[in-house]
């Protein structure tokens, strides 16, 4: 389809004009009544809060409150179907007669269910659609899970809660967030972080948004706070994500914030106090080497500051955490609101680190007319944090202590003076983030509904690094550095759905829509080196000032059409297509079409299964998604830099008019089953996702003088199996005990390099051998220099680079796992008001590169022992250096982590009322409690290495090569794992 980008504007404005025209006749009043009632658990009789209650086909709906009560205003008069839905329960429907100006009461008893097929999801479905009608898997994390989690940001929250997701923490450093990837790396160049929407607005999800200190960078995901989230929906690419078009190949995360509800204002106050304790399992304390020319070890040991536990006692710390929350929710017959504020503050587990976050959230919903509603939600967040350099650095205390350079790089002779040197610097950062979303919904009849959303995400950050003059760990005399970034993202979304019954079909609907977004990111970094006097914090005082600026901008516009239909409420079919145009596409590239088709069929409803099955649904789908190339890489450009008072131009990007998005075509099939009275729920999905037109950075011939150009020449495949199972082991009035398991596998393979020779991923100076792209092998497969025996005498005598094979299994190795999963359990004792949840995660099949072991070799620290090298006559000629035996840095990446335990106790009502409230709760939460790793961790020197080397979960050291580049993890220098967190909370509702 040929449609130039310039034609998008008329479409855009036309769409809104259409909306306006459709809205005008709606401004007429109609007669309404009120529906109220209470929802309770059928097995325990306890009230159920946060259930979704709707008057079907009318757009009127709301949530039940803490006592399970709900109030629906403006319900159209006449016979209406009211439904109550909540994750973990089978949905119920009831028919009521609404009378004008009167209140009708209807109560619900919901039965627990291990499989939720009636839940409404909206991500990638055009309109709110019951899960059982979808052919593709949409994962949902509900309010209960979110509230009970001690997670500090969205990546932590999703850890272990989505099958097929790999989410690894990066480090304990404030401002960092986990590395996310769904269904394996689908690209060899692009970051795998899913796109994220908050209340329909696309938000900044960039990973490396600050300067890099030893490889640790701030992530924009760190300030997506988890306050007042109602629900999160996740699609992992494929047909489920197709309607998001050219940017959905890595999946979509959609966050919905809490809404107001009719009724008097309800206030909630929550106080949390806690302690964070550093994870020291992988910390090797003071056994640094003492190079003689810096004073011998005796000098350091004789000094009063000597402490064998110096790292634990002086570099790390247990720290205090506190959080205060105040929220109000309520509404009138036409207006609902939810307003909250939160302050969160914690010292970090490394001295000189800490974080303070202020968060204001509000949402308002107004019924403007009987068929027109407006919703607004907004969040303002301020995040201030400080950190220290870790990882690949020569001026970080932790790194230098653990690899033996503590005295050397500080040029000091005792621990106290050296630590003072490392601490003579401050790394501070502040983030201001505002996210706003406005939605107009027009629902004139059961036939048509329309929605228009406009929103903005604005994130402004500034990082400063001030090195004092006495910071002699570097060769310079003081440094003032600032890294600023300004992100603006604007989203416009217009969609409509026609719902009707066609001959033979039921639940038939046609959805259509237009979506546009623009993103701008400006970065400025200035470094001032060489200062004369202490105390100055402005870089213009420096002798040597360098400044850099970056600017990225992209606009994407897309249209979609989706047809859904059901037959006999058993077979559901869907087919759709999305068209996308994008300013990053080459000038020869037109709109891209992304089709999808899918079907699901419920054998149980069709009566084809025994009664033991409440659900047995088969589903299959085919869908295409895209990943647009980085902005401006289509153009031939010239760069320039200052030289000797002139601006000196140079060839830059060679240009590619045919640059198009990567296309991921996914075929998936699966089943959902529930049996044993809905007490066992099972979901199985198998998928194959093939990336065609995969983009590689193709080198130009050196004789052109031009570097490299992105070209669509490759093919990459990911295959996997995802299984999730829930079992209600005990379900009665006094107790509910449930278990859940998620498990997924991944096989990744580069199918075609488009004629390119194999190449390396992100090697800086060739020394940090991350991985290789080679046909027939996974992306990032380990390819390193390793000892070899050239004369066949069985003794290694040389070194050469090649694919690394496991010494026992002979298999090649990857930085990402081949399988991972989680197991959780929850126990609820409603009569005692107690509920307990626990969750653990595991990962298998990855390898991690322990770069700290390379550093340690300079100081002869026994971290990993490198093999003996022989000459051709079989005589020992010493040890291999790490650069010759890089494979010896590899450690087993398997782990099992007890991720979180939460306990909540509903205090007796009398206690709450004595304080003037309606309910009160005590909470205890613990996170990152225990880590198991196979020991010894070293793969090539298990007998000659430390038992514990590193926390393999951590994505750790990253190549700081831009916001949107591929990051597979699997390489670490010295990085501190996220701490053991303990939280005590008290919450009271008035």
């Amino acid at each position, binding site marked *: 389809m040929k449609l130039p980008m310039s034609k998008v504007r008329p479409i855009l404005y036309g769409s809104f004009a259409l909306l*306006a025209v459709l*809205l*005008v006749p709606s401004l007429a009043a109609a007669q309404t009544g009120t529906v109220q009632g209470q929802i309770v658990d059928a097995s325990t009789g306890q009230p159920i809060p946060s259930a979704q209650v709707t008057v079907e086909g009318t757009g009127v709906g709301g949530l039940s409150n803490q006592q399970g009560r709900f109030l629906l205003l403006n319900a159209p008069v006449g016979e209406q179907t009211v439904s109550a839905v909540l994750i973990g329960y089978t949905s119920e429907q009831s028919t009521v007669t609404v009378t004008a100006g009167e209140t009708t009461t209807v109560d619900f008893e919901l039965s627990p269910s291990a499989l939720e097929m009636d839940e409404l999801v909206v991500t990638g479905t055009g309109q709110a659609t019951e899960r059982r009608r979808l052919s593709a898997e949409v994962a949902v994390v509900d309010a209960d899970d979110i509230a009970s989690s001690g997670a500090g940001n969205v990546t932590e929250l999703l850890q272990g809660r989505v099958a097929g997701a790999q989410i690894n923490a990066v480090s304990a450093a404030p401002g960092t967030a986990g590395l996310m990837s769904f269904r394996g790396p689908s690209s060899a160049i692009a970051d795998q972080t899913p796109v994220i929407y908050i209340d329909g607005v696309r938000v900044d999800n960039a990973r490396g948004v600050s300067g890099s200190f030893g490889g640790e960078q701030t992530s924009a995901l760190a300030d997506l706070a988890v306050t007042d989230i109602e629900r999160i929906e996740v699609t992992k690419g494929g047909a489920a994500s197709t309607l998001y078009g050219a940017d959905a190949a890595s999946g979509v995360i959609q966050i919905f914030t809490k809404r107001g509800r009719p009724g008097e204002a309800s206030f909630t106050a929550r106080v949390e106090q806690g302690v964070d304790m550093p994870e020291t399992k992988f910390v090797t304390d003071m056994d640094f080497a003492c190079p003689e020319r810096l004073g011998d070890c005796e000098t350091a040991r004789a000094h009063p500051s000597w402490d064998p536990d110096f790292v634990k006692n002086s570099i790390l710390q247990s720290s205090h955490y506190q959080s205060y929350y105040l929220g109000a929710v309520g509404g009138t017959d036409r207006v609902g609101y939810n307003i909250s504020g939160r302050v969160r503050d914690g010292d970090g587990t490394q001295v000189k680190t800490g974080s303070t976050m202020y968060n204001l959230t509000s949402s308002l919903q107004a019924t403007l007319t009987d068929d027109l509603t407006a919703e607004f939600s907004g969040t303002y967040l301020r995040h201030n944090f400080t950190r220290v350099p870790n990882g690949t650095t020569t001026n970080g205390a932790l790194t230098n202590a653990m690899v033996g350079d503590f005295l050397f790089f500080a040029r000091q002779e005792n621990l106290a003076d050296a630590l003072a040197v490392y601490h003579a610097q401050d790394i501070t950062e502040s983030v201001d983030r505002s996210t706003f979303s406005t939605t107009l919904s027009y629902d004139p009849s059961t036939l048509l509904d329309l929605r228009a959303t406009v929103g903005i995400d604005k994130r402004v950050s500034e990082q400063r690094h001030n090195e004092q003059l006495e910071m002699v760990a570097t060769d310079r005399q003081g440094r003032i550095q600032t890294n600023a970034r300004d992100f603006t993202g604007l989203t416009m979304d217009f969609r409509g759905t026609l719902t009707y019954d066609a001959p033979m079909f039921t639940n038939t609907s046609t959805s259509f829509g237009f979506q546009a977004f623009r993103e701008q990111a400006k970065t400025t970094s200035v470094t001032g080196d060489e200062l004369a006097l202490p105390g100055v914090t402005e870089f213009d005082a420096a002798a040597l000032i360098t400044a850099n600026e970056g600017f990225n901008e992209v606009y994407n516009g897309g249209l979609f059409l989706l047809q859904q239909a059901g037959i006999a409420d058993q077979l559901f079919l869907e087919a759709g297509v999305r068209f996308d145009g994008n300013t990053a596409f080459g000038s020869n590239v037109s709109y891209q079409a992304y089709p999808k088709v899918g079907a699901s069929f419920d054998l149980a409803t069709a009566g084809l299964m025994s009664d033991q099955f409440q659900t047995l649904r088969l589903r299959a789908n085919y869908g295409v998604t895209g990943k647009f190339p980085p902005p401006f890489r289509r153009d031939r450009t010239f*760069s320039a*830099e200052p030289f000797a008072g002139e601006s000196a131009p140079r060839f830059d990007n060679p240009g590619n008019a045919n640059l198009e998005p990567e296309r991921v075509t996914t075929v998936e099939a699966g089943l959902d089953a529930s049996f044993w009275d809905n007490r066992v729920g099972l979901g199985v999905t198998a998928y194959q996702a093939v990336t065609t037109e995969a983009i590689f950075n193709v080198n130009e011939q050196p004789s052109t003088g031009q570097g490299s150009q992105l070209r669509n020449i490759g093919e990459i495949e990911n295959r996997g199996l995802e299984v999730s199972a829930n079992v209600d082991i005990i379900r009665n009035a006094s107790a509910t005990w449930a278990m859940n398991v998620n498990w997924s596998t991944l096989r990744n393979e580069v199918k075609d390099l488009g004629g390119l020779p194999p190449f390396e991923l992100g090697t800086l100076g060739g*020394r940090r051998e991350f991985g290789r792209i080679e046909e027939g092998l996974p992306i990032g497969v380990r390819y390193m220099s390793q000892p070899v025996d050239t004369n066949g005498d069985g003794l290694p005598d040389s070194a050469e680079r090649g694919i690394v094979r496991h010494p026992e299994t002979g298999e090649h190795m990857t930085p990402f796992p081949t399988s991972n999963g989680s197991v959780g359990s929850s126990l609820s004792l409603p009569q005692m008001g107690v509920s307990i949840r626990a969750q653990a995660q595991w990962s298998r099949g990855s390898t991690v590169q322990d770069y700290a072991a390379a550093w340690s070799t300079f100081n002869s620290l026994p971290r990993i022992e490198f093999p003996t090298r022989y000459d051709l006559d079989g005589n020992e000629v010493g040890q291999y250096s790490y650069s010759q035996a890089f494979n010896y840095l590899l450690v087993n990446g398997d782990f099992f982590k007890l991720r979180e335990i939460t306990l909540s106790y509903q205090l007796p009502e009398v206690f709450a009322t004595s304080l003037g409230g309606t309910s009160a709760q005590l909470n205890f939460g613990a996170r990152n409690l225990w880590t198991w790793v196979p020991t010894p961790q070293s793969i090539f020197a298990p007998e000659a290495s430390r038992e514990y080397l590193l926390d393999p979960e951590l994505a750790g050291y990253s190549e700081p090569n831009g916001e949107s580049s591929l990051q597979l993890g699997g390489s670490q220098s010295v990085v501190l794992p996220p701490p053991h967190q303990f939280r005590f909370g008290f919450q009271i509702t008035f």
Partner: protein
Amino acid sequence: MRSYRFKRLGRTALAAAATVLLVSGCDFLDPTNVTNPNTTTEDLAAAAEPTTALLPGLRAQTARAVRAVVQTSALLSDDFEIAFTNVGPELSDPYQLSPDGASYNTTGGIGAYWNTQELRALADFVIDSIAPEDEGATDEQLAEARYYRGMAYLLQGENFIAVPTGPDQEPTAWDGLLTRAASDFSAARGLTAEAEREVALLAALARTHRALGNVGDARGFAEDALAADPEFVTLQNYSAGELENPFSTETRTFQPLPRLDFLDPKYTSRGESIPVAKAEEMHLILAEADMADGSYGDAAERIADAVRLAGDRPTEEFNDPDERLNPNLTDRPSSSDMLVAAEDGAPLRAGLVLDRPGTVTMPIISGTSLDADSVEALTDPQEIRHAFWLARQEILFLEGRRVHDLGVRMPVSQREINTNGTVSDGDDVAVVDVPDYIPPDIMDDFSPRDPYEAGSNEITIAIDMNRVLAEELVSPLGPLPSG
């Protein structure tokens, strides 16, 4: 009434929303309103004086090419050892040089292959595509561009086996590259009226013809250059914080051979210039031409001229914090009590190692340990050849000549092999060419590595490559007559 009020509210809200969207949203929602912040082809076409605009780019790229060759030559030869740095091991010894070495194959600062290719390509672009269409381009500008392209060819012709000069072209052999260099330099002479550029071009032509083995032309241009200015120096400038001189920072990362200790650091700050041509080299070219003609007595006098001129060049006091450490953190010779023999059996010489950390006096243009009178008094052809090579090594220290002088020729980079269909792995042009007289792995070595631990002040270098070059009668002007 209430219902009516809401209707009014609804209309107002709609009108407001529509206005906000259509007015304030216009620019932001206009898909054509995305502008590349860099200069695109269209932008360049709109430049008023594109040649003037691009010349600073050529100047900068020449600075990059020169420093990459200087750095590569220093590390690959016996001049320097890699002690503490991320530079790849392939640059530590000629025998280890492989086209895919990360520091050799790089497009970054140290990539000699890349940076000379980029210089030639950018110069081609200016000379062939931009200047002919640019009415404002002057002869002087064209002379400058030709000089830079000539430098690209000269650096390539001296140091590489063969290099393609355009996409999908077969590599042009080193002598072909040098011929192109001579052609560009000669063309530039016809375009320039600046005396300083004329001297630089004469010196470049002398150097080019020396590399080509043209004794007469080498001698002629060297004499013309000296006649134009007997003490000339042409400097390649650098700028701290921008394009920096790589051998001035973090001095401890590269460690000189102990017998060259007194010359390092030649560049004491990050903005220090590197000489690309100077009168001393002309004297040495004349000496070499004399030797080629069998006139060793004349050659000794010419070498002495170079040594005298070097002795007249400025020096600089420098407070050097370098501790002179071996890669394993033990101490290299770093005090003036050290005596250094150029190899086993060679005489022990004092004054070659200075006291560090401490204040040292550095020759910033030329320095040498040779004494002019002693050189002049030499009569033995082998000793004269030896003095000649030592003079070249010391006087042209850190000026990018040593790899060429050792007779090593570097291969095309792996990037060239992978992208140019005319070149394959294993081709003659893709494998480093190292003369048999160079021993593997020991050129940078000496003993004892830590004289202080060994309790000795006598340092012996593993091999004296100047003695080897002299014995092997090596010269680009052809094998020298033995006597």
